[in-house]
């Protein structure tokens, strides 16, 4: 290291710790950092470590390098979990965004009973996922399930929904859209309300039509909110577990159910389950990085 850079570094340190206010700030986040180190960083590193070994629940076992990962990618259940998760994530987030944006635009307008509508759309989101999953399972079911009955009666499908993996996956996407669109709508609405009305007025005076106003004003100004909302939802969908587990009665595989089966049910797949957990972690991490750097998401309000 050259003297110059060392000096520069010292300057950086001085800037950070020389200022008493900053120093206090560091002291105040220190306990939180330590807890994170203990409950987040340590388990993550430990999982990575275990995923490189012939680990069982009781022993770390022999070091095997990436063998668990290569085996995992040859595992049919993992592949189906991965495909289901990716399809589920892309489809549900896409529909939630489109519908959520529509709802947000609609309830952003002043109309009678707006407060009531805003509260009412949150109802599905307020249900715990397991409850809504169990409820929808009943509706999809062949004995008392109204949806299964109607879909079969009008000839949309010709088999029980719960017996078919593809229909189950489509069903899960629909349930997720039903459940979390309100959340998306609410986030987007918050974003919409930060756009000042005079920008629209000015545009209208300049003769911009409704589409121009939407694409030239609303969308660009809403972009930061959209990115945050979509990232949240993507992360959430990507780790889908309870919805699949309960609604399909453990038949539909996702990445998370694969991990659970590996580390909790199976006696032999512990290491592979760990490898899958690490895989979820890194892919989710990459996704977050993509949002931040690829799409230019703002992570702080410092500019």
């Amino acid at each position, binding site marked *: 290291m050259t003297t110059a850079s060392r000096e520069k570094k010292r300057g950086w340190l001085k800037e950070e710790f020389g200022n008493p206010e900053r120093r206090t700030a560091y002291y105040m986040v220190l306990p939180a950092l330590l807890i994170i180190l203990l409950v987040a*960083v340590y388990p993550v590193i430990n999982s990575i470590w275990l995923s490189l070994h012939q680990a069982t629940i*009781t022993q770390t076992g022999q070091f095997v390098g990436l063998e668990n990962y290569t085996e995992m990618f040859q595992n049919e259940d993992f592949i189906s979990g991965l495909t289901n998760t990716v399809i589920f994530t892309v489809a549900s987030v896409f529909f939630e965004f489109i519908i959520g944006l529509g709802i947000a635009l609609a309830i952003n307008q002043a109309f009678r009973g707006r407060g009531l509508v805003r509260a009412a759309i949150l109802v599905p989101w307020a249900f715990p996922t397991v409850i809504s999953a169990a409820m929808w399972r009943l509706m999809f079911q062949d*004995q008392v399930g109204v949806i299964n009955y109607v879909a079969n009666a009008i000839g949309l499908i010709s088999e029980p929904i719960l017996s078919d993996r593809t229909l189950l996956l489509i069903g899960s996407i629909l349930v997720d859209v039903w459940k979390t669109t309100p959340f998306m709508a609410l986030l987007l609405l918050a974003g919409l309300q930060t756009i000042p009305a005079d920008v629209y007025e000015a545009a209208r005076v300049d003769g911009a039509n409704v589409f121009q106003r939407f694409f030239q004003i609303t969308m660009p100004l809403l972009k930061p909110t959209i990115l945050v909302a979509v990232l949240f939802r993507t992360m959430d969908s*990507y780790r889908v577990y309870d919805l699949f587990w309960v609604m399909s009665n453990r*038949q539909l595989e996702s990445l998370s159910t694969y991990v659970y089966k590996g580390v909790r049910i199976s006696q032999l797949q512990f290491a592979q389950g760990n490898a899958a957990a690490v895989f979820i972690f890194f892919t989710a*991490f990459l996704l*977050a990085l993509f949002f931040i750097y690829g799409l230019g998401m703002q992570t*702080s309000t410092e500019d």
Partner: protein
Amino acid sequence: MTEKQGQSPETLSGRRMNRRDFLKIGGAGLAGAALLGVAGCGGGGGSSEGGSGDIVFAMGPDTSGSLQKLIDKFNKENKGKYSVKYREMPTDTGQFFDKIRTQFQSGGGDIDVIGGDVIWPAQFAANGWILDVSDQLPDNERNKFLEGPIASMTYEGKLYGIPWYTDAGMLYYRKDLLEESGFNEAPKTWDELKEMATKVAEDSGTKAGFVWQASQYEGGVVDGLEYINSYGGKVLDDNDASKVVIDSPESVEGLAMAASMIADGVSPQAVTNYTEQESQTSFLNGEAVFCRNWPYMYALVGNPDESKIKPEQVSVAPLPAGSAGSVSGLGGWNFYINAASQKTEAAIAFAKFMAEPAQQKYRALNGSFLPTLKSLYEDKEILDAVPVIALAGEALANTIPRPVSPAYSDMSLKMAEQFNRAFKGDVSPEEAVKTLQTELQQIADQAS
């Protein structure tokens, strides 16, 4: 993870790291960290308090109330010597198993005796977690119990538990509808069942002929194995539990019979997502002629809140036979002693006490728990009070346990998947058993 960020941030961002970037990546990292599921490790020290005869008994919730009464009786009879405390475990068998396993892994825990599922012993025994009780039940004692429960606890020639109560798959049928169509007794074979179910359902306008458990779960494994075993198919070699022999013409025949139930319309297509719950709903609503279920359902038939049909419309029979006879899947619960317990004497005394005829009879009369002692199947009082025992004692005698293997959990996951696929017709029975042969053998090899 943070290590990586700290060491080479340049590679991540392509430029010099400043504080904001660090926060950005850190934030993303934390968001990611929240997604990472790691196996929790439950604690539970080995320190137990109380006198040398104070033991902890772990078992799922007992809604009948008979369990606590018997524990009180034991404590009273052994006052000053032994004392048992009941610790309630989760209702869900899987969660119960998981909890116990976690305790064992962390060094034994403070539970001395477990009231556990019949599929557990080999998995515990292979790890040395439960006590070999062969000496406690010599042959003349052992012969007094039903063979199924004993077989389910026999691993590598040793006995790892004391039998408690049992369960067996049986065939419920609508006596009234069968009579209307001119049938006077239950079907003896699967082929007969198909014929009768089709005719009776048609004659009476009943929605389904036969409902059972074909979903992808433990219950689907039990049902699938009943078909396979009734044609003489086996999962593991009788003499060598590490050898998988499921790929046989007999297994194919059994699975083919199961799949044909759905393919030929005897069972509704939806049966492939039925568990006990759905089959029960269907049968008790009068929407099915036949139903394969456990003995518990008989008590529900008499309950007008649960059932639209009446007990006099229903009868119970052993499951139909394949070419190798009638076979029922074995369920039930037995006592396992924690090998790390310091108080095995008290634990064994308690388990043996509970297995005695008087206590088994009490549980049969107060809760309809099916005894594991053969002699109680001739007890007039029990037969009168619990009709299902009188009606299907034969089924209870023909039980076959699920494969006794230290890696049963893994095998079950695979069987559940392949059986369900075969039931649906997504794969042929031949393919299913071929796949299972490879997969299960791999598991067996890995386990040993």
